[in-house]
């Protein structure tokens, strides 16, 4: 674990999609073991910033990045960094639940199978891992008889929980979430939020959200971004009650956005 207790540190991070600059000199420190939320109007670079941390941005050609991103003290753009290891350490949950179109059981094991030698998992181990992961996200009781079911036919809430569950066997340090509840109804949102607060101690969460009430409810720290710039980063309560920057005040007091 990093000595200064930050899981993610960026310094003067700038990013361009072709000619368009999506991130401008972002320097931020995300504390370990807490939930940090990223808020801001649409198109302000929240998702882009999030996607930098496990380098999924790179898949879309013409992306240029400058600056430094350190995860657990290690610069992720160093040539000796393996993408596989990085993505093992930094898990990601997407906006729309995206379980793989295979069984629930195989969904949980997919990540693990990638990262372990061929056929090194035996049946009992695999069963235990699946049970453990599903129990951690409170799905075991619902799904223990449906492990062979296609994951895409579950309810949305269950799908999103499954997407979180499939990260757990990889033992990630950081979990990135891109508007994890936007496709869910109130009950599903509540369930996912509860799950996050239970897991928070053991993982560092970074969530992008459009829902300010959600940011207030779940996060310990809050980051406000506007047009690619980081405007304010403080404890959630402080940011919402006594925003320092006028732009933040406009946004959190709903005068804008």
């Amino acid at each position, binding site marked *: 674990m990093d000595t200064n207790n930050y899981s993610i540190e960026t310094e003067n991070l700038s990013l361009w999609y*072709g*000619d368009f600059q999506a991130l401008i000199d972002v320097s931020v420190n995300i504390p370990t073991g807490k939930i940090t939320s990223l808020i801001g109007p649409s198109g302000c670079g929240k998702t882009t910033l999030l996607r930098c941390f*496990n380098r*999924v941005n790179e*898949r*879309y*050609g*013409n992306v240029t990045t400058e600056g430094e991103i350190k995860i657990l003290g290690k610069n992720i753009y160093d040539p000796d960094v393996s*993408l*596989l*290891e*990085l*993505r*093992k350490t930094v*898990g*990601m949950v*997407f906006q*729309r639940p*995206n*379980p*793989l*179109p295979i069984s629930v059981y195989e969904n949980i094991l*997919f*990540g693990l199978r*990638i*990262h372990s030698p061929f056929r090194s998992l035996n049946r009992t181990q695999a069963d235990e891992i699946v049970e453990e992961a599903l129990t951690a996200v409170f799905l075991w009781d619902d799904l223990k008889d449906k492990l062979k079911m296609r994951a895409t036919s579950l309810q949305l809430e269950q799908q999103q929980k499954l*997407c979180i569950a*499939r*990260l757990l066997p*990889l033992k990630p340090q950081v979990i990135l979430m891109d508007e994890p509840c936007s496709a869910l109804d109130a009950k599903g949102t509540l369930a996912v939020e509860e799950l996050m607060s239970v897991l928070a101690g053991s993982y560092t969460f970074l969530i992008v959200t459009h829902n300010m009430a959600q940011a207030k409810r779940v996060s310990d720290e809050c980051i406000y971004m506007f047009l690619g710039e980081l405007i304010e980063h403080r404890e959630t309560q402080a940011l919402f009650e006594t925003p320092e920057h006028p732009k933040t005040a406009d946004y959190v007091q709903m005068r804008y956005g």
Partner: protein
Amino acid sequence: MNANIMNRSELIYHTIAIVTLAIFIILLWNFTSDVSYVEDQTSSDVMTEETVSTIYGLLYRMIPSFCGVILFSIAISFYLEEWLHQTSWQYQIIERYIAILARVPSLVVGILAVYFILFHFQNITYYSLLLTVVLLVMPFTIRSTQKAIQTVDMSVREAAYALGATRWRVVTSHVFPHTFPKILAVIGTAISRILAVAALLVAGVWIYVSNSFNIPKSVILMITGAVIVSVLSSLLDWKK
């Protein structure tokens, strides 16, 4: 910077299209203005009744080549869709050129092939047939397989990549299984295109050699086969 790349690829693409058109126009000009040459050749006995039997032999020899061409085309489409960046100029050029070729109706390729084999070269060889197969099958197969690959939900790829899967892993464990039924349908359609053109060729040679329209049964069989295969492949495509 990106705009420049687009312009360059646009330029190359238009050049290719214009050069292709020019070649076709020159070829056509050449053939239409040289009718006497063609008529002289018709009196020679290069094409005899033996030709009909050699055609069958050649058509059987085409089967493995056909399989090779199909596999190669499928590999190319996976390379285009999963490995190349879609904004890269290589992708743009290959994709557009294939799009042009894929729009040429199979009948046009078939008639051109028959014309060249019967009236121009007066000879039927393995390579002329191979060229026909390549022109007839490759652009179509690549294009349709690309379309099938594009139907795979982007979120599935993202999920797998974010878990650390390599490109190869994503393709073999998700994209390929998902597109497999559609690829089978594409192969079926390719087979029926080939059968139809083969029927056209055999019929053409038969009429040319025997001077009668009493077409052999095998032609009818090939046409029926083409219809059956295309119906079966459309059934495969129906499900998804």
